[in-house]
């Protein structure tokens, strides 16, 4: 059974009189341990899909089975628990708590899962920060860290509860090419060594190339889903040509 099973997902926004179809009958299966790049022109529904996958949003219709459980019918508390335990989210703009240090930022998901005592919690946070190479910056606030460092803190936070899935919506969008390469190396390592399923939205082909599978969205629909990066880029050019 796939880890993620999306069936005919539709998301429609009502903007006054106008209906905006952000996702139209998107279907997608992703297995445990996959590394997927999600591409598509701006406004094609990538973020909407990621929010859906991350249990932050609910589709207008369709079905989403996560680990065999139907997410669409869940209460908001149940979805909060899924976000806490099964999903790590990495954002383009890092989304760290600005007035708390790295340690406390990484600790945050552990506070809401509440299964670790303070000592074990600190131990785990230290381990995570070591993993992303920031053990020495534990007491730095986000404003005292570079963009790449902030993103690595965010990744450590996403991994706090050892979730099987890491979702990253344009994680390198605010980083220069050098730091973005570092972040991508970290992702690759997490996928290879820890078997974490990674789904990554990106505009950058150099970034997308790291993934083992590419999914291209266009107008809220999956137009290409392939392990062949060349085919995916071709499909991407086609969508951009068709929708300049």
């Amino acid at each position, binding site marked *: 059974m796939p880890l993620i099973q999306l069936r005919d997902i539709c998301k429609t926004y009502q903007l006054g009189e106008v209906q905006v179809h952000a996702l139209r009958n998107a279907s997608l299966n992703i297995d445990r341990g996959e590394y997927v790049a999600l591409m598509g022109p701006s406004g094609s529904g990538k973020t909407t899909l990621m929010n859906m996958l991350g249990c*932050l*949003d609910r589709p207008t219709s369709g079905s989403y089975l996560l680990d065999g459980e139907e997410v669409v019918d869940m209460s908001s508390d149940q979805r*909060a*628990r899924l*976000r806490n335990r099964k999903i790590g*989210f990495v954002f383009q703009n890092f989304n760290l708590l600005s007035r708390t240090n790295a340690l406390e930022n990484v600790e945050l998901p552990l506070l*809401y899962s*509440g299964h670790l005592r303070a000592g074990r919690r600190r131990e785990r946070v230290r381990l995570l920060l070591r993993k992303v190479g920031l053990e020495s910056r534990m007491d730095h606030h986000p404003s005292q860290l570079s963009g790449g460092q902030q993103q690595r803190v965010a990744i450590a936070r996403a991994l706090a*509860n050892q979730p099987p899935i890491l979702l990253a919506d344009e994680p390198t969008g605010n980083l220069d090419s050098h730091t973005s390469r570092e972040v991508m190396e970290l992702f690759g390592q997490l996928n290879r060594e820890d078997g974490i399923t990674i789904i990554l939205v990106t505009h950058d082909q150099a970034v997308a190339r790291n993934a083992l599978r590419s999914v291209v969205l266009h107008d809220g629909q999956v137009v290409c889903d392939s392990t062949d990066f060349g085919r995916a880029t071709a499909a991407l050019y086609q969508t951009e040509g068709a929708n300049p």
Partner: protein
Amino acid sequence: MHPTLTLRVALRAIGKNKMRAGLTVLGIVIGVAAVIVLVSVSQSAGLMIHQQFQSLGTNVLFVIPGSQQGGGIHLPTGSIVTLVATDADAMTAECPAVLATSPMVSARAQLVAGNQNWSPDQIYGVNEKYLTIGNWRIKKGDYFTANDVHAAAKVCVIGKTVVDNLLGGMDCVGATIRIKNIPFQVIGILEPKGANLFGQDQDNIVLAPYTTIKKRVSGSTFNNIDAVFVSARATDRMQEADDQVTQLLRQRHHIRHSTLDDFTVHNSSEVANVLNIITTVMTLLLGSVASVSLVVGGVGIMNIMLVSVTERTREIGIRLAVGARSRDILRQFLVEAVVLSTLGGAIGVAFGVLVAIGATCAANALLSGARWPLTISLNAIVVSLVFAGSVGMFFGYYPARKASKLDPIESLRYE
């Protein structure tokens, strides 16, 4: 999230913006301080009145000749001798609610000692029980005995003001003073009581056996007395004592049913009760006026919490994204509001206590004589702290609920 963690998160959030937190709780601080000060002041007033009544004597009734019934004072025709020393003795013997009595005759005279003279406010002729009845204590020497009273001995005890003005403040037990040229031996000095409620000096007094004052100072041949001091057995038996004394005196004076009393019983407990009620009402009134400002302070908290929720929308989004449930968010903001208002309350208590102490010191420095007591009501402190906390809970609920209803995606997008 675990409650202690929630509390820590709240304390952190408050600590990060101390200035704002201070301004937020200013209303609560002032409200609680006002409650503490006003309750303290009105309770001090009550206590002072109570102390004054205590210093008048222990559960004292005061019986004087003449009637005050039916308006005005009706002296019995022909100035009959109405109240006599044996009336006082009979009260002690026959009224169960009466603990002790003392006849009283008063005199006005100058005192002379050596080449000094002095006019005391009161020269009281009383018996050996009066010391207890009047709630006096002897500071030095002794009080006169039943034998002294019986023998009309020329002894007296004097108050501090008399000691200071007539005898230059020296140790004067054993000294002789003259009242209307009659030598009295000073056998004791009274413990000072200070001024009474009306600023009158209570220590400007001479006490001597009533027999001596009556026969030797006033030179009277009648056996009437000016008043009887009656001490009831307990404060709540004063009315009972009043009734028994009235009954007994009517009987002893052969007053028929339809006729008016030829004496009047002054019962200080009535006045004390009224004053008690007044001070209680005053305490409640001032307390509730002050607590209105607490409510206003609560509105201030709500205001700032609402701003804070808007400002921290992104923080809320982040917390939701990493797995906070909406009730975690609700709790976080609610606890923050309650902690804020309780802290404000604590600061208000400290502030209020300081002001109350300052006001008491100032009152005692400015008003000579009367000693204004300091009362800090523990009840007022506990009640206003609890009230401040509840105000925070009540006014923090709406902002907290608003925070908990935020949508994670929109909050994350909020700039």
